[in-house]
């Protein structure tokens, strides 16, 4: 019975991914990470230089899921009201004044928050609150956001003029951090073909809301053995330089390691991976496969790490090499 369920998850996931890939060239890992976020109920942070198609990826995904999609371009003068909405004073026929709430773009299912590092901290926090609570409070009134609600935020590290990089506490709220890389020669040629010829592909709706919710429940329902749970904890502990199990690179380049949210990401991400593989329990290998997107934004580098432009991916690679699967 459960075997049949797992098969269904894989089929749905794959169908969805393939539909997106009909439009997007390359970036398979980013697409998979994005889908994993969706089914884990978490929010995604994408690091990407401009022009690589992040808007297109998220838009295509929303079309394939028949979900509402909004995009907010973050700028230094963006106000919180531009995100959540405002109350407008209206006057009815008898002259009495009342407030009418005009919804901001956050009232959607998939929200693309583009270049989130360009907005002021106040505006960033308005978004992050909505992300956390799945609700916004304006003028004392709390309004719930419709499920499913997922935020895909992007950061552009090349253009750092006038930016406010998200502080670590806020970065931590993102489930996965994905990296979009530039296409290689063959991918670039394919992109050229798709964007300059008459062929225009219309995205088909592959899953509906209920199916998405069902898949989310399935993902949560996967078992994790206590030993594997501890493996996740051990990985996270090894990222802390003061802990005894810290590796050399961690001790040298990391000021502060991952928060407990890192274990959540490893575990739930691992669950989705296990399901995709048709298994009912999470294995250590599943966790390793999601280690980088789970942890690369949760490591705070120290001065030397920043000065030498150390890539957190290298640190994570060393950690998962060294942490044993079993043991205390």
């Amino acid at each position, binding site marked *: 019975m459960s075997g049949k369920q797992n098969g269904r998850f894989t089929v749905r996931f794959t169908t969805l991914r393939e539909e997106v890939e009909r439009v997007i060239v390359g970036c398979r890992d980013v697409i998979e990470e994005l889908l994993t976020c969706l089914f884990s109920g978490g929010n995604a942070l994408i690091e990407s230089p401009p022009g*690589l198609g992040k808007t297109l990826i998220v838009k295509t995904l929303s079309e394939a899921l028949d979900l509402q999609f909004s995009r907010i371009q973050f700028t230094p003068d963006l106000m919180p009201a531009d995100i959540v909405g405002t109350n407008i004073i209206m006057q009815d026929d008898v002259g009495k004044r009342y407030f009418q709430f*005009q919804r901001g773009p956050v009232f959607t299912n998939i929200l693309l928050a583009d270049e989130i590092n360009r907005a002021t901290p106040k505006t960033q926090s308005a978004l992050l609150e909505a992300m956390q609570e799945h609700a916004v409070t304006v003028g004392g009134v709390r309004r719930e956001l419709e499920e499913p609600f997922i935020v895909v935020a992007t950061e552009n590290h090349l*253009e750092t003029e006038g930016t406010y990089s998200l502080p670590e506490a806020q970065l931590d709220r993102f489930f996965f951090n994905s990296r979009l890389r530039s296409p290689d*020669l063959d991918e670039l040629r394919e992109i050229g073909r798709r964007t300059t010829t008459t062929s225009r592909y219309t995205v088909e709706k592959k899953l509906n809301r209920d199916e998405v919710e069902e898949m989310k429940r399935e993902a949560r329902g996967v078992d994790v053995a206590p030993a594997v749970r501890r493996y996740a904890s051990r990985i996270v502990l090894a990222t802390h330089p003061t802990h005894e199990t810290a590796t050399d690179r961690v001790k040298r380049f990391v000021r502060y390691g991952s928060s407990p949210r890192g274990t959540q990401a490893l575990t739930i991400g691992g669950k989705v991976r296990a399901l995709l593989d048709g298994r009912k329990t999470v294995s250590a290998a599943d966790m390793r496969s999601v280690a980088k997107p789970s942890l690369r934004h949760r490591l705070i580098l120290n001065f030397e790490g920043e000065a030498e432009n150390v890539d957190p991916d290298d640190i994570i690679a060393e950690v998962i090499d060294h942490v044993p699967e079993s043991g205390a």
Partner: protein
Amino acid sequence: MGKRSEETNTEKLVQSFRDTFVRMSDEISKVIVGYKDVIDNVLTALMSRGNVLLEGVPGIGKTMLVRTLGEILDLKFRRVQFTADLMPADILGTNMIAQDEAGNRTFRFERGPVFTHLLLADEINRATPKTQAALLEAMEEHSVTVAGTKYVLDEPFFVLATENPIEMEGTYPLPQAELDKFIFKLDVGFPGLDELDEIIVRTTYEEMPPVDVVAKTEDILEMRKLVLEVPIAPHVEDYAARTILATSPTSEFATDMVRQYVKAGSSPRGLQGLLLAGKVKALLDGRYAVSCEDINETAHPTLRHRIQRNLEAEAEEISTDAVISDILEKTPQTAEAV
């Protein structure tokens, strides 16, 4: 027999594309003195579904150019002067409270200047980033979303934005992500002596010559469709892609000059620009397919704003045009077997 007529049909289509384009260019030149390549590039951008960023000092006829373009195509034209206090609503439009006869109050959307065909966004670098972003989003999507409702813009929709290079105080230079959305960036220089003379003659003596309508909306849409249909041989595609990759200092195709002076290279949008503009160039030359030479000719306006210089390049005053020329020289044109 049927095939023959199809072929001559194609020939006719290409010929009429050329003729219309040339007529458009000539008609605009009746009014605008000089700037032939600016005019041609603007028309090329129009045919490629792209938008143009012009950099030039005031008073050289940018408004005249867009207005004339609207006249010869019988398209609506609006001009917006961007200022520091311009709000997105001033461009996109606002919801106004309206009262009907029964006294019921409803929201009515009043359209902003963006609801037009040709929009001249003057001194776009004066506006606040939020306002810039609002315009550029409309430019990309060809639609406007206000208060949750999406309004689609009429085709053909074309934005010509200008940047003032000298008065840079109190301006917000466009960030790379926004610059990338323009297919071309054209540097409009100051007119020469003869041209200035001619401008004096035309503007202080004679009446402005009336311009004829050269093409209509359907013609433009047909021409745009034809551009998309122009085929590209794999070796030209490959050459264009390698040229784009060569702009990135971390790529295997990068030249030494790129590695030394470039911080970041072009995004895939650059390739899109190269290919579409190349297709237009091929048609204008009376050919049916894109050649490597077409790519070379469109490289400068397409890429000069997509290559970010590093501090060393700025210190040594190495222009992106120089880097592009270097790339074109060093990237080989090869033809592999299939």
